């Protein structure tokens, strides 16, 4: 899977906000924000194809977390990215 074209992660007031480029109206009344680790993963895969496994791999490299926890977290994250229409 990959992140759909046109989505950009922007730091606005200390928050990692997803902005849809090419979209005429940027609606700050409904924003998607990512926490630090989700933002980290986003930056890692923004221009590439990825799998849940590759995300787990990045997490394990960067953070002190065990495999199971990382896998669970990634599952949840990818599910919410899909739900928000960010990923194809």
């Amino acid at each position, binding site marked *: 899977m990959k992140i759909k074209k046109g989505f950009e992660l922007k730091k*606005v*007031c200390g*928050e990692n906000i997803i*902005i849809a480029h090419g*979209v*005429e*109206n*940027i*609606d*700050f*009344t409904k*924003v998607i*924000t990512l926490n630090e680790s989700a933002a980290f993963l986003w930056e890692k895969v923004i221009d590439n194809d990825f799998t849940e496994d590759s995300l787990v791999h990045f997490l394990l490299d960067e953070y002190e977390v065990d495999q199971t926890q990382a896998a669970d977290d990634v599952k949840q994250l990818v599910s919410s990215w899909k739900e928000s229409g960010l990923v194809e």
Partner: protein
Amino acid sequence: MNKLSVDNKVFLPQLVQLVNEGHLATIIAKGNSMRPFVEDGRDKLIFGQYDEIRVGDVVLAEVTEGHFVCHRVEKMEKGLITTRGDGNVTGTEIFEASNVRAKVVKIVRKDRTYDLATSKIWKCYSLIWPKLYPVRRYLLAIYRLLWHHQLPQRWSNR
């Protein structure tokens, strides 16, 4: 879903930057200064670039560094713009055209979108409301009473 609150001083310059890049930007209205049309927390303001500023427009201006207001243009003379919030009785802001950062191009009021350039309702309201200024204080008090069940402050001390 969580609510994210950010300081105007930090957020609005970023909003202005996006507007200057050609986007429209929507935020939730904060404060009572544009009552009765725009209500705090309920309605939304959609900002866009401004080309020309006219009396009656609602503009976002940075009156001093980091301090923004978003009110209706009441007067333009000698290179200075005077704005007054629709929901304000006293108090105007006076600044130069170069202080304007963006213009409100649409308002979402009670989930209905009004394009300020074309909406007949907005145009009528914009024509009439400023003219009612001599009785604005009383109209706003009635508005607060009816819609917010708020008595004037001095009454509650009796």
